[in-house]
């Protein structure tokens, strides 16, 4: 009997062009490779989360992957009730012998794009736009700043957040306004980690002919020639791997923290940003990557340190 699989998105939804979408792509790849289909659901609220997970478990799904930290607590609760069902929580941790928690070292990927940004910037003024002020977003910002300062200690990083309510992820006008305000202050590279609002920021950057950095999935193709790079977070791989392990019977519970070394995060270099990445930048970013890989550089994780060293 084949195991059954399910994917649970958070409020961002399947097509958020961000980590939900990335998870979806991973599952789709699994489906294509194995011809095994899966169920996917979008959860609209916290209270609904438990209900969904429970329903799926009861329907006899064997592996349920929940995307986004909002599901962490729910997974922990429901996993306890269904010890025979396996759970994957992405971007959060949940305890349980049947739970695998997948975390990413966003700070490492952000560090790399910070390095690229500081090198590409003419003004040495960099911008960061986050959706809501939460630890995850601070970890992005902190890694980015560390990377930039490693290149040029005098580089300035200006941070802005879009808002405090759920609409902060869907407010492209505010995102573009933040980007414009930043560019007016002389900032010429902007890293946007703000969901749909970030798309507005990228658009504004394109209009002003400056450079932007995408997030989560490779967004370089959105605005070729504008996108300096993207900080990719391979949620797709995490999902694909989990599903595969389940299929092969090698699935294991526990916490995995995917960084550069594990291929969990990276920077994106493809035809769309080839023209912006000079050999010099490419060399420096790759050597920064090496430094992190071999432990010469330790990128501080905001979530562990509870503060950013810079």
């Amino acid at each position, binding site marked *: 009997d084949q195991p059954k699989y399910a994917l649970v998105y958070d409020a961002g939804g399947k097509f958020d062009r961000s980590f939900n979408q990335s998870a979806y792509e991973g599952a789709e790849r699994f489906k294509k490779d194995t011809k095994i289909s899966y169920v996917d659901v979008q959860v609209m609220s916290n209270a609904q989360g438990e209900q969904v997970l429970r329903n799926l478990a009861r329907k006899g799904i064997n592996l349920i992957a929940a995307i986004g*930290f909002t599901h962490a607590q729910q997974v922990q609760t429901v996993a306890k009730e269904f010890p025979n069902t396996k759970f994957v929580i992405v*971007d959060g941790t949940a305890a349980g012998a049947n739970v695998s928690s997948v975390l990413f070292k966003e700070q490492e990927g952000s560090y790399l794009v910070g390095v690229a940004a500081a090198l590409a910037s003419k003004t040495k003024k960099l911008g960061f736009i986050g959706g809501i002020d939460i*630890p995850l977003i601070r970890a992005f910002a902190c890694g980015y700043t560390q990377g930039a300062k490693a290149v040029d200690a005098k580089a300035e990083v200006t941070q802005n957040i879009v*808002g*405090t309510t759920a609409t902060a992820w869907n407010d492209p006008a505010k995102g573009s306004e933040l980007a414009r305000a930043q560019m007016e202050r002389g900032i010429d590279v902007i890293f946007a980690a703000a969901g749909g609002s970030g798309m507005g920021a990228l658009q504004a950057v394109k209009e002003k002919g400056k450079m932007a950095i995408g997030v989560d999935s490779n967004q370089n193709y959105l605005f070729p020639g504008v996108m300096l790079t993207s900080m990719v977070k391979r949620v797709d791989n995490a999902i694909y791997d989990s599903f595969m392990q389940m299929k092969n019977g090698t699935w294991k519970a526990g916490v995995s923290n995917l960084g550069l070394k594990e291929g969990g995060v990276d920077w994106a270099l493809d035809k769309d940003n080839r023209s912006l990445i000079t050999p010099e930048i490419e060399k420096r970013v790759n050597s920064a990557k090496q430094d992190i890989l071999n432990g010469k550089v330790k990128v501080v994780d905001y979530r562990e340190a*509870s503060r950013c060293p810079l």
Partner: protein
Amino acid sequence: MNSDLPRWATNVVLPFLNLLTALVVAAGVIYLLGESPLEALAILVNSSLGNVEGFAYTLFYATTFILTGLSVSVAMQAGLFNIGSDGQMYLGGLGLTLVMLQFDASMPSWFLISLAFMGAALFGAAWAFIPGYLQARRGSHVVVTTIMFNFIAASLMNFLIITYMIPTGEQNPASRVFAETGWLPRLGSVFPVLGDTPLNLSFVLAVLFLLIYGVVVWRTRWGYALRAAGKSAHAAQYAGISMAMVVIVTMLVSGALAGVAAMNTLAGSMHYLSLNFTNGAGFIGIAVALMGRQHPIGIFLSAVLFGILIQGGFDLSLEKPNIPAETFVFIQGLIILFCGAMENMYAPALSRILNSIDQKWGKHV
């Protein structure tokens, strides 16, 4: 307009026709999305009303809406449009959580829950007090101030949660989980037929509040003063009712009710405080209050209707991937439109039909 219609027609036939109209339009949309409307309706009804567990979920969602609906209704009785129930519920959640985090290791369950209840009510009331006070003493429009206070609440809670509440090293911007002593008893533990659903004591509480609301507003001196002040400031002054007092007290009560709505979500189901946990329940409360015409039975029915849409709609989008969950947001809007705003659409026609029946049979129905 419909005063010449018998009560059974206004209270039963018209709402039914309106609901039917909304459903017909919704069916059209579902058809256009490539699914069978009848099948969709069957799934919707079956999953929210057709089985005990689904019904329990429906009531669970309705519980929050009853409370926020009551919050908005109380204020409306006094002529105040409290758009801030959402923020008040959010702050109520803070009050509840502070009690839980502080005492959940040291207190017996019933005491802890009572204390948390008071914390929720108190914080909700406090958050509503400021707009109430400003309206009463400074004449600042309560609509504007409560909208502002929703935004301010979101900022404040964002700050408090990520700065003080997240357990160190956690990703999720949320408090730690309360100890089980702080969990509201689930009705399923008393009536096993309800299954493992989050329907909890707050439902009983909400229904109790509905009854209290009905009695207080229509059958007490305080309710009389409230309604009088809501209808005519001059008459209130003539009767020696302190307008400022009514405004402030009403906002306190309204805020407390919104705050208590957090009980269902936090103490009854999630057991921790998270960012934006209200999920717009305060705004749905406005729709519930308006559609239910601030009447206890109306509030109950429209809250349940919203519960049905959330529970049934969710299951439907699970079964029919072609129908995105947002379709039900649209259908919610349609139902509010047809049952709430266009409630009298069929009144003239119905009254004509009834009249001709009257004439044909020569008696008054």
